């Protein structure tokens, strides 16, 4: 198929960006979306032009590196997948596809379609862990965990940290991302010990970094490539409220 691509080009975070139109021809329906961008880039390089910069790595939907709004939707039109898992059979011959970087204040553009998501790492560093050291740990089976809780924890832990939830939210809220980590640990006995402190630290960091609040539109869940449930946000709100009620410390 032949396509027109309207791609956001921006040399660096310091200069203004703009849309630039490109044409690609004879794209196979079996190619992935990023392979289609590879083809465009190889043709640009051959002409001596600068290729379009975009983040990507595993190309199997697990590393969380790829991003992109495709026709206004994070990770494109299909549900439950990342951009790298999107195949060109989702598009039609002659179509114009608009490709943009994530747009959210805490995710500044680095170049073209690449954004800086280090704010997510900062939130995890504020409390997204269990404070155990290496070694000296009792046997793994010494604390049985109800299967249901283990499964719910796994559902939340499936988050790949891509930032689609923030990109989808009109408030640029990171509540789905933060609540997924809070929930994973809140559901497991190993994580309960620090649960109150954790949720307060992570929420405080999230606010400090400029992420917005949640107004229950559920756009995050709809666009999440791992279909993380908004019920995690409800769980985080419960955790946060109860922690605030009995907390000894201010965060």
């Amino acid at each position: 198929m032949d396509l027109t691509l309207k791609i956001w080009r921006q040399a660096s975070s310091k200069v203004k960006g703009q849309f630039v139109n490109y044409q690609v021809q004879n794209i196979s329906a079996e190619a992935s979306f990023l392979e289609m961008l590879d083809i465009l880039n190889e043709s640009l390089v051959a002409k001596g032009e600068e290729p379009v910069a975009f983040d990507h790595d595993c190309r199997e939907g697990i590393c969380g590196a790829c991003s992109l709004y495709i026709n206004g939707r994070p990770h494109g039109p299909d549900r439950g997948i990342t951009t790298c898992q999107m195949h060109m059979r989702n598009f039609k011959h002659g179509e114009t596809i608009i490709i943009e970087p994530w747009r959210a204040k805490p995710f500044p553009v680095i170049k073209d379609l690449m954004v800086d998501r280090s704010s997510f790492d900062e939130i995890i560093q504020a409390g997204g862990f269990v404070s155990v050291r290496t070694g000296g740990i009792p046997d793994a089976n010494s604390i049985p965990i109800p299967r249901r809780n283990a499964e719910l924890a796994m559902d939340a832990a499936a988050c790949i940290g891509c930032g689609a939830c923030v990109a989808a939210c009109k408030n640029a809220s990171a509540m789905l991302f933060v609540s997924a980590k809070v929930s994973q640990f809140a559901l497991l006995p190993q994580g309960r010990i620090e649960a109150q402190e954790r949720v307060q630290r992570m929420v405080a960091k999230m606010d400090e970094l400029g992420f917005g609040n949640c107004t229950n539109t559920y756009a995050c869940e709809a666009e999440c490539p791992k279909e993380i449930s908004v019920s995690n946000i409800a769980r985080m709100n419960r955790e946060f409220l109860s922690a605030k009620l009995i907390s000894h410390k201010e965060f």
Partner: protein
Amino acid sequence: MTKLNPKIPNGQLDQKWTNYKAHQNLVNPSNKRRLDIIVVGTGLAGAAAAASFGELGFNVKVFGIHDSPRRAHSIAAQGGINAAKNYPNDGDSVFRLFYDTIKGGDYRAREANVFRLAEVSNSIIDQCVAQGVPFARDYGGLLDNRSFGGAQVSRTFYARGQTGQQLLLGAYSALSKEIGKKTVKMYTRRDLMDVVIVDGLARGIIVRNLITGEIERHSAHAVVLATGGYGNVFFLSTNAMSSNGSAIWKAYKKGAFFGNPCFTQIHPTCIPVHGEYQSKLTLMSESLRNDGRIWVPKKLEDAEKIRKGTLKAGNLKEEDRDYYLERRYPAFGNLVPRDVASRAAKERCDAGFGVGTTGLAVYLDFADSIKRLGKNVIESRYGNLFQMYEKIVDENPYENPMMIYPAVHYTMGGIWVDYELQTTIPGLFAAGEANFSDHGANRLGASALMQGLSDGYFVLPYTIQNYLANQIQIPTIKTDLPEFVQAEKETKDLIQKLLTINGKNTVDSYHRKLGLIMWDNVGMGRNKEGLTNAIKLIQELKVDFWKNVKVTGTNDQVNPELEKALRVADFIELGELMARDALSRQESCGGHFREEYQTPEGEALRDDKDFTFVSAWEYKGDNVEPEMHKEPLVFEFIEVKQRNYK
């Protein structure tokens, strides 16, 4: 005179590690604060090591190529992690895990290292559970296990089809905890450009900042390379796009020996190649072989009809199907080790029985299991893998059998290390897939995660102290030493050279050509003629690359073309070394199948008399033949047998 000393501790096999730890040198807490350690790589081995060093009190600097340590390629491992817990009460033990691993590696790994790996495997599971890794559990709330290739027990712990992700996120959370405490400093989006050696000791690294292009110098008392494998030499592999061999290649060029470079794992269950624009191959977890049966049509005419699309797989009668793994290897069936399964698939396809439009595919069929267990059980075990398959191939694997074909997946070879994971350069260590150590000529499924975490959590935190105990008098290493100045200059010159060639061919076009040469000659089947030819072709490709490559952009900004060019330049040289190693190893073992050396039934024929050694290659200069050293492998505690999965 060879420098190879594996430093295997004395004593009985099960006492070696205990004895080592009891007698090694340690660094006291006040001295730890004064010692710097650099860790390159944030996958399982790197993140686990960095977090553990930070907890111990060392000053740690970690470098990664991604925007976040969580994106390292360990994240993509699907199936699971082995440990000798024997929770299912099915006869497992530390010795059995050790034995299966060394046998699976076709007796080309060190006894002492592999035993230690099996010994610490149980602690890894304990550690991960304490970190909040949500492993699969049974209804009683205890941990569940599944079986994997090359074993007759169920010893694999898993978190759905995302075990690597969950283990890496566990290590990432431990690392994040230390970054938050400022015991560890993280440098994201940095490419290693060189290792700096001062007076024969590893003292630092040169990195390129991938955002600004700045070349930076960093010093330390010890350097750990945990930069993964080099499967992307083949262009198409299951590795992530940025996975590369440059860090270990720079270390090799600075004097670290390279162990068993030709030992490559071709994974049997990947989604087949579909087009020339293809950028990578997708693995379908080996765990699928627990419930999937592998087959091709028994008759050539049926295979042809299937390829043309006039016959559907589901309509082929049971007696017209050849379940070739069950036929050839009744004892292990579909769960034979990866190398055996891959070769068997290639053999059937080469003989004309392959399916799919290209004929380079075999079926992995779940119909029997769905009948036996119900669709919901299969869905709970492999749901995300089935979804992934359907998204890529556009076919429902619950209704039609999956199509799979082998693909490059893992490199057992890597930087040569001794028992302490130290390379032939003092102060330079290598961990995880970057080293050659534990998997011999073939790695068993669910053992990569085990090795990465073992090296990072439980081996390096001990062994690195044995080295650093002699460094406590050394103040912070200055980065204005002439060795740093020189290394930085060489890096800048190299970049400048690449940017000014301004030829006519893209970097990817060279990578693709290299991949084809490697796959055709240094892939699943190798022979003298092909390997000799490959060396010649690669040398020609190298000359062509340095004359005609086109690298757009400049150095002072984000420049993915430059990043790729630097990596491909190293891949080309690494590919040549792999071919040399494969040529010199005149036997078939594990993933290394030399067509001249096989039994009349087509099984691999090892030559224990002449080849029970690790080949360790020493760099001798650009365009000069490298020198091979041999580390003899001594088997004191087990009997070396012909592998038999029949």
